[in-house]
């Protein structure tokens, strides 16, 4: 029955992962920008939660929207002022640019917060519940539920609101969108901001599970990559599917190979999938 436990772990992780990846996927799919800052955004969100908890007594679940808003502003500013200037440049340029920006911000975090791993320990702890033979830690379940909620909210936003329709239009065709009266530059900044929002909120939620440190940013970035390749770009269902698949893969490989190989397995899978089916499981061609 250990498989059931591993399965449950994987699914819970999956909900989490979907939230980590969906902002990244959106920016990549709509703006054709691989945001190497994404991991740092998540860590920043976690720091917002950490400091809110220790200085203001704000529960991480409540500081998630706050972290989101702060990161939105940062993301909006970065895209508007800097990244927008290179959206028509070759792939290489935008990648290098976001890499440079990430070096800046990550270093700034290191200087400001030091590399020490912080943790948020909730008082009182949430404990766990047992469903039959499967044990589910409540903090993880709660994070998963909230993460999924956030992701679904984004999905509704994209599908139903005018803003969302504009973003989807941009995803399909920048020039056509411009002809339809969409201010592509401003929408790009908004989209990037939304991606940052999701990252910050996710970081905030994650802060009670993962240790917080600027050194973790590549870990989250790597997961976001793999999820996007697994699930396809620019779609929320894709990020969710990819997230769950990655969660399951990590759980099962932890079981069979040992937890230290989880990252390697996911990266090898990334390469294999790219080699064989770059559009991902739900195959939406994201600007090849």
């Amino acid at each position, binding site marked *: 029955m250990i498989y059931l436990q591993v399965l449950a772990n994987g699914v819970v992780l999956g909900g989490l992962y979907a939230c980590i990846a969906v902002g990244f996927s959106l920016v*990549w799919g709509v703006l*054709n920008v*691989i945001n190497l800052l994404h991991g740092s955004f998540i860590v920043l969100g976690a720091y917002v939660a950490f400091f809110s908890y220790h200085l203001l007594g704000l529960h991480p679940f409540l500081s998630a929207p706050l972290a989101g808003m702060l990161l939105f502003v940062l993301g909006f500013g970065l895209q508007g002022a*800097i990244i927008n*200037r*290179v959206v*028509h*440049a*070759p*792939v*290489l*340029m935008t*990648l*290098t*640019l976001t*890499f*440079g*920006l*990430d*070096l*800046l*911000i*990550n*270093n*700034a975090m*290191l*200087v400001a917060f030091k590399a020490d791993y912080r943790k948020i320990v909730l008082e009182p702890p949430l404990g766990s519940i047992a469903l039959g033979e499967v044990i589910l830690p409540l903090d993880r379940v709660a994070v998963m539920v909230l993460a999924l909620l956030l992701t679904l909210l984004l999905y509704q936003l994209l599908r139903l609101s005018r803003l969302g329709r504009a973003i989807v239009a941009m995803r399909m065709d920048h020039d056509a969108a411009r002809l339809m009266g969409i201010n592509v530059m401003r929408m790009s900044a908004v989209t990037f901001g939304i991606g940052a929002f999701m990252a910050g909120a996710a970081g905030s939620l994650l802060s009670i599970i993962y240790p917080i440190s600027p050194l973790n940013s590549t870990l989250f970035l*790597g997961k976001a*990559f793999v999820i996007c*390749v697994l699930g396809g770009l620019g779609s929320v269902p894709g990020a969710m599917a990819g997230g769950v698949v990655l969660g399951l893969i990590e759980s099962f490989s932890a079981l069979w190979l040992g937890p*230290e*190989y989880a*990252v*390697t397995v996911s*990266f*090898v899978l*990334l*390469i294999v999938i*790219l*080699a064989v089916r*770059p559009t991902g499981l739900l195959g939406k061609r994201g*600007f*090849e």
Partner: protein
Amino acid sequence: MRDWAILAAGVTLFALLPLLGGNYALRLGTIFAMYAVLALSWNIIGGLAGYPSFATAAFFGLGAYASAILAGKSVPMLLAWAAAGIVAATFAVVIGLAILHLKGHYFAIASLVLAEVLRELTNSFADLTGGGMGLNLPVLRWTVGQEAQFFFFAMLVLVALTMIAVLLLRRSTLGFALRCIQQNEDAAVMLGIGARGCKAVAFMLSAVFVGIAGAIYASWVHYIEPGDVFDVLYSVKPLVMVLIGGIGTLFGPVIGAAVFLLLEEAVWRSFLTIHAAVLGGLIVLLVLFLPDGMLGSRKARLVWRG
């Protein structure tokens, strides 16, 4: 003709460095030569062929470990270096056939991830590689001065070889084919260019000298560990150097390597804690304001590779 003359002059002048400077200058010179090898190699796949590769760190680390492992089994140093180049080249061809059909972002990601995977695998196969504890290389019974000079000349020879390869490639049919592929791959294929094979060869060439550089580096520093030689910065720095000097130009990578190294040394000495931030800032400014580099021009600008 002019290019060969420049190469010959450059190498000769550079070879005079030991007469002018002490060990510190030699150390800088060695690093400069190594950077130039990495940048020139990257320019083959990234500039000439137009495929933005982030695989340099993978080749570098692979070469370092291949050579170090062989050296540990008493293989003569120079032989180990050559073998490292072959290992890196073979790896490039095999992986290349799997990922070179990808375009733009996807290729960049796949190549970026290679170093990560190799790093993890190196960590895991600890019996062979020493894992996280790292690997020591045999100590050479030379004086500090002799070692400094030896490795300086080793890197110098390597960069000269790399430059010769680049010059030959540029003038060859393969070089012509790669330029066609970079500007319009679909049209190139329709004209009878076997793009798949050409790209694989370019990728292989971008790996062989990098692998040897990794091997020389390992022998030079006597101790390597996965996080050190598979560092993603070994993939990003050559790119930045080429951007500084001008993508797709012949000597741009070399100029870029020199400028970058000077900046790096200056910054490292003055701003140790924020050197990453300064590097990041430099990159941002470069991309925003000098995308063609110092030697590049509108003409040499990359076509959008989507």
